[in-house]
């Protein structure tokens, strides 16, 4: 059933198709390339001995949002949830809350590192509404410098606090 869902969805855009191919979790190489670097952190959500979600976070970045321009921020390089937890691939996701947990973790890192909750990321197309409408991040438009022209979002300190308090 999962394979059929994947096959159906790979008929959509190239970005989305490639992302679905990531369902077999080729993240180990990325982690190894960064494992000795102090400005990269990686997080995995595990349950029942299986990785349910993954995030690579960089603690060196600078804000583009006008009220926070050039102030340091944390940047989510990659965040992804296991395919069996994704509502687009299955009508009955096995675990919920993996995304908010990872985002809450990223915000915790930002605050702990003295970055006041500032956080940036490039959203995949299917996730834009979550970051814009649910998380209420500032949407800074498609980024022509980023492969795929993905839309760039940022949390200001106030927005981060609102998300954490909500």
């Amino acid at each position, binding site marked *: 059933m999962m394979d059929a869902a994947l096959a159906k969805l790979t008929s959509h855009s190239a970005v989305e198709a490639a992302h679905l191919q990531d369902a077999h979790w080729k993240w180990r190489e990325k982690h190894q390339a960064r494992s000795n670097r102090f400005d990269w952190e990686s997080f995995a959500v595990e349950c029942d001995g299986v990785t349910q979600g993954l995030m690579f976070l960089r603690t060196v970045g600078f804000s583009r949002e006008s009220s926070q321009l050039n102030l340091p921020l944390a940047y989510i390089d990659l965040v992804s949830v296991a395919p069996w937890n994704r509502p*687009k691939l299955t009508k009955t996701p096995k675990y919920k809350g993996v995304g908010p*947990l990872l985002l809450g973790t990223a915000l915790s890192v930002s605050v702990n590192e003295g970055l006041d909750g500032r956080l940036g990321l490039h959203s995949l197309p299917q996730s834009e509404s979550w970051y814009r409408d649910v998380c209420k991040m500032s949407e800074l438009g498609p980024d022509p410098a980023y492969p795929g022209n993905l839309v760039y979002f940022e949390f200001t300190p106030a927005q981060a606090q609102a998300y954490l308090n909500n």
Partner: protein
Amino acid sequence: MEMLVTPKWLRNKIKTEPDFEIEAGMPTHLLQSIDAFLPADVVPVSAEGEERTLQLKHAFGVLVRSLRLRDELSVEELAAAATVLIEDIECIERDPHAEVRPRTVFKLAKVFRIEPTKMIKISGTTIPVDEELACETLKFAAKSDGVSCLNAEEQQLLGAFIQYLNKA
């Protein structure tokens, strides 16, 4: 690290947030295919790159020490002003092999009133891509001999380098 989210917070999010996709960042497959596995200003470290990073970290240590002496601060006083550990300052000034947290560099930039982006680029915390900045930093360090106080010539050299950093 202190987690700012609690199980109660997460249960509330699960209850109230709609089921949306949350994926961000390039899919691994596309990153590999366009040879952009890492962001443009972070590249895999080669042996040559590691040597360069050590040189830059040494130069950064000379800069921090020079700035501390310029401002007539002891290591303890600088650590207090920047709210960082004394050990972090000592490591930065004496040990190019020490790992420096970006947060420490940001705090030092604030105390010394230098643009944080420049401090990060010359700290060895990330791989330097700005070659001109890296070269100027190494030149500055080569001319400074790190004695216990700065003479007039060293003051001038430091002033000129800070001016360059803030302009570049």
